[in-house]
C-alpha cells in the first residue's frame, strides 16, 4: 500500500516532464524550427549517446565534479575552524561580521577576472573560485552559529568542568552544525554557478566549456544536452545529498523550540 502511494507520487512528479518532452518532440518538427536555434529531441539524444560512447561527456562531468569536490573540501577545512575561533568571542564576531558579509557577497563570480590573472587559465583558478564561494559563506555561517549558542549552555558546560577540547567537540561544534550545513548548501549553490561561469572562460574541459564551445559552432543540441546535465546533476547534489544532510543535522542537533 505504502509502496503504491510512493510509486504514484513519483509518477505524478515525473508526469509534467513527460508532457514537456512530448511537446518538444511534436512541436519542434511541426513548426520546422531551425536546428541552429533549437534542436530536435532526437538530435539531443544522439548527442548524449555519442558523448557517452566516446567518453567526452563523462570526461567533462568528471572534470567539473572534481573541481567542485577539491575546492569545497579545502574551503571547509579552512572555514569551520576559523569560524568557530572567531565566533567564540562575541566581541570579535560582532567586529568581524561586516567585512565577512562584504567578502561573502563577492564570493564566486566576481573573483573570476582576478583569479585567472593570478593563477592563469586552468585548474588553479577554478578551484580558487570555488574555494572562495564556499569559504566565506561557511565561515560567516559558522561564526553566526557559534554566536547563537545560548551563553547559558556554554556556562553550564564550563561549570560542569568541561575542558577546552570537550567544550569544542560537545558544545560549540554541535551547536553550530545546523548553521554550518546551511552555509555549505548556500555556498555550494553559488560555487556551482561560479564553476559553470568560470569554465566558460578559463579552461579546456568541464561542462561550462562544453556549452561555450558548442555555441561557437551553433551546435544547439550539445548546448541543450549540457543544460539538462547541469540541471540533473545539481538536482542530485542538492536534493539527494545536501537537503537530507541539512534536515538530519537540524533534527539531530538543531535547537528545537518547544511548541
Amino acid at each position: 500500500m505504502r509502496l503504491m502511494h510512493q510509486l504514484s507520487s513519483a509518477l505524478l512528479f515525473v508526469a509534467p516532464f513527460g508532457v514537456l518532452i512530448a511537446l518538444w518532440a511534436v512541436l519542434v518538427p511541426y513548426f520546422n524550427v531551425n536546428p541552429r536555434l533549437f534542436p530536435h529531441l532526437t538530435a539531443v539524444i544522439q548527442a548524449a549517446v555519442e558523448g557517452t560512447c566516446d567518453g567526452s561527456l563523462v570526461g567533462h562531468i568528471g572534470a567539473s565534479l572534481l573541481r567542485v569536490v577539491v575546492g569545497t573540501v579545502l574551503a571547509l577545512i579552512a572555514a569551520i575552524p576559523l569560524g568557530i575561533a572567531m565566533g567564540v568571542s562575541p566581541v570579535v564576531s560582532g567586529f568581524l561580521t561586516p567585512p565577512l558579509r562584504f567578502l561573502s557577497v563577492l564570493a564566486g563570480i566576481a573573483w573570476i577576472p582576478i583569479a585567472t590573472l593570478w593563477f592563469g587559465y586552468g585548474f588553479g583558478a577554478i578551484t580558487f573560485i570555488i574555494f572562495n564561494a564556499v569559504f566565506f559563506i561557511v565561515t560567516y555561517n559558522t561564526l553566526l552559529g557559534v554566536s547563537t549558542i545560548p551563553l547559558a549552555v556554554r556556562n553550564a558546560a564550563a561549570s560542569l568542568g568541561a575542558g577546552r577540547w570537550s567544550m569544542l567537540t560537545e558544545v560549540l561544534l554541535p551547536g553550530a552544525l545546523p548553521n554550518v550545513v546551511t552555509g555549505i548548501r548556500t555556498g555550494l549553490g553559488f560555487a556551482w554557478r561560479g564553476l559553470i561561469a568560470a569554465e566558460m572562460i578559463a579552461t579546456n574541459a568541464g561542462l561550462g566549456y562544453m556549452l561555450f564551445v558548442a555555441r561557437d559552432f551553433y551546435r544547439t543540441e550539445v548546448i541543450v544536452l549540457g543544460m539538462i546535465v547541469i540541471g540533473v546533476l545539481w538536482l542530485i547534489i542538492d536534493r539527494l545529498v545536501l537537503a537530507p544532510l541539512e534536515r538530519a543535522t537540524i533534527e539531530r542537533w538543531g535547537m528545537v523550540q518547544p511548541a
Partner: protein
Amino acid sequence: MTAALQRVWGAYVRITARWPAIASVVPFIPLVVMWWAVVEAGVFPRVFLPGPADVVRSFADLVYKGILPDYLHDSMVRLAVGAFWGIALGIPLGILIGMSQLAHRALWPLLLFFQAIGDIAWLPILVIWFGYGLATMTFVIVYTVIFPVVLNTVLGVRSIPINMHRAALSLGASRLRILWEVVLPGALPNIVTGLRNGLGYGWRALIAAEIIVGTSGIGFLMFDARRAGSVVEILLGMIILGILWYIVDSWILAPIERATGQRWGLVTR
C-alpha cells in the same frame, strides 16, 4: 597597555551604540591597513597586488573620464529591469501555484528542474537567440530572480492557516477580496524574503553575464581590465560590487523585509 586598549574599546562601543552605522564601517579599517602593509612589504609584485592608494587613484581617474558612472548606471538599469519583470511575473505565478492544486502538480517539478539548470548555463543559447545585448541580460536576470520569488510565494500562500480562508469566506468575502485581503498580505513576508534572495542571485548573474557577453557594466569593466592585465581596475570593480550590494541589501532590502515581517507576519502564538 591593556587599560588603554580597554578605554579605546569602551569608547568604540559607546559610539557605535549611538550611531550603529559606524559599526559597519570601522571593521574595514584594519582590513585595509593589512592590505596596505602586505603591499608595502613587497610580498607580491606590485603588478599582481596593487595597494589601496592605487585603487583610489584609478577610481578617481575612471570617475573623471566618466566611464565608471556610465557603467554603474548600465548595471543598475539592467538589474532594475530584470528585477521588475521577475517580480511582475513571479508573484502571480507563485499565487497561482500556491492556490491551485492542479497548477502545483503540473508546474512544481518543472520549476525545481529549471531552477537547477541555473542562469549561467542559459548564456550560450541566449547569445544564439538574442545576440549580445540587453535582451540576453534581462532574460538571465529575470530567470534568476523569478525562481526564489515563485518558490517563496508558494510557501507563503500555503502557510496561511486554512481557518483564515474559512473565516473570510463565512463573512461573505468574494474570491477577489480573499486574494487581496487574505492571501496577498499573508504571503507578503515570504514574498519579500524571496525577493531578497532572488536579487542576491540576480546580482551575481548580472556580473557573470557582463563578464561573458558584456559590452558595458561593472562586470565588463573587470573583464576588460583582466584582458589588459590591470589588477587595479579589477580590484576596484570588486570593491564597488561589494559596497553596492552591501548598501542595497542591508540598507534597502533588509529593512523592507523587517517592516513587512512586523506588519504582516503571522505571529504564531
